[in-house]
């Protein structure tokens, strides 16, 4: 048990520290790298709670794909810290005011929070014994039966977002030469090549 506790404190500390580094780093690429470390430690915490499937998905989706794209974009940006910090002082009162309002709203929300008494039972019910049913199976059994329509709807929403992004950014350019591999393969010697018997001094 003590090993688990130590591992928990290790992952939790590193996750919180690296999350802090994300917002304090001057260099935006370093910030993304810290963000990746935070994701990774989050996955570690999931493993500790026995949610191995979610942990692996977190690494595959967030670390393996989303953060790569972040890094891609951030590396391409031409960021100048000096120009970004221009006008910092005059915006401070505004920023503090907005932050204060958000904090107050959060406090009101959390203060008035009441957990429904039957919530605990609902949360526990669909969780089968981890020793008997692997995570993956348990999740699949719920997602593809009880929540099938919601699950499919989520997929459709993502599809619409993807199509939208492509439609918005795609532009058709003129004069682009594209390789058409089927045409290249379909070429036959007879269609492309003519053998001419040229008489001497006759020319073609």
């Amino acid at each position, binding site marked *: 048990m003590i090993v688990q506790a130590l591992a928990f404190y290790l992952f939790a500390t590193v996750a919180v520290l690296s999350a802090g580094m994300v917002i304090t780093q001057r260099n935006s690429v370093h910030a993304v790298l810290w963000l990746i470390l935070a994701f990774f430690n989050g996955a570690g915490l999931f493993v500790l709670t026995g949610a191995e499937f979610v942990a692996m998905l977190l690494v*595959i989706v967030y670390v393996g794909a989303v953060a790569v794209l972040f890094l891609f974009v951030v590396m391409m940006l031409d960021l100048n810290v000096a120009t970004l910090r221009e006008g910092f002082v005059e915006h401070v009162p505004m920023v503090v005011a907005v932050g204060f309002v958000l904090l107050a709203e959060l406090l009101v929300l959390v203060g008035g929070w009441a957990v429904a008494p039957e919530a605990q039972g609902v949360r526990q019910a669909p969780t089968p014994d981890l020793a008997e049913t692997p995570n993956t199976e348990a999740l699949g059994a719920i997602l593809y039966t009880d929540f099938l329509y919601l699950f499919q709807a989520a997929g459709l929403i993502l599809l619409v977002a993807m199509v939208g992004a492509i439609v918005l950014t795609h532009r058709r350019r003129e004069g682009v030469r594209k390789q058409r591999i089927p045409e290249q393969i379909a070429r036959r010697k007879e269609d492309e090549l003519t053998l001419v018997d040229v008489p001497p001094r006759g020319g073609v």
Partner: protein
Amino acid sequence: MVDFLATYLGTPVLIVLHIFAIIMPLLGSVAYLTYAERKVIGAMQMRRGPNVVGPFGLFQPIADGLKLFLKETIIPTGASPVVFLAAPMLTFILALVAWAVIPVNDGWVLADINVGVLYLFAISSMGVYGIIMAGWASNSKYAFLGAMRSAAQMVSYEVAMGLIIISVLLSAGTLNMSAIVEAQQGLWYAIPHLPMFVMFFISILAETNRHPFDLPEAEAELVSGYNVEYSAMPFALFFLGEYANMILMSGLATILFLGGWLPPVDIAPFNWLPGIFWFSLKVMALLFVFIWCRAAFPRFRYDQLMRLGWKVFLPGSLIWVVLTASVLTLTGNLPE
């Protein structure tokens, strides 16, 4: 001794011993894979390959390793030093930790976890960071271009690889590596899933940045790509990581499609041999094809690489997933 190993203190000792038992042969294989590559390509090009250091040049990898070990580590002035040095370490560490879930024989695996396939997929999807970090931290145009190419390439081929793995998982009904091998008793998945096996092999060529998809280090255009600024041990770590990844991916292909440690037919002369022999034999055969591809094919152009990944492999593997699921459901063979 046995009593001690079962105690509270003994467990970590046992795990460390297991890790050494995996890593030592692995590093040896990496060293001799470089030798094999040079010998095989030499033979294919009617040369002799390394033949000076030791009998048949067998000590060449050791000499190369020593050379890299004794050289000076140079950090370019404009480089970001911490990221610059972290990149090769990350590449190497990821190439090693993935071996924790590879079963080389019945029960010979460090961590027999339920989500073994996903773990491997997660680790291999992180491999791209070593290369991006190296390219960015070097503060060099060639290195950066190589890193960009590599990032796009690895992300693209991972999508197809994921779908290919799904068809295998549908047939096996589990994410546990050992159970996938057990499910292939009698029929290796390379036979019913032959098109997927071929596509998987091509994808792992792209995933490990090997020829003919070695655009990230295309020496004709990018000098040497992302690792151009590296010298001595950091370079050696990249090199070791790349070759360890080749062996890892061959191991994964062996487990998913070629029946892991299972003999080709379960009859007398074949099943006398230990499983590790069959596993190594299959991995070596795949590695030979890796090297063969390097000798045989010219490099892809970048748009051709992207077209193959997104327009051929992605729809192809998606169709195969649907096909596999339909056939399994209609014939009632869907695993529980």
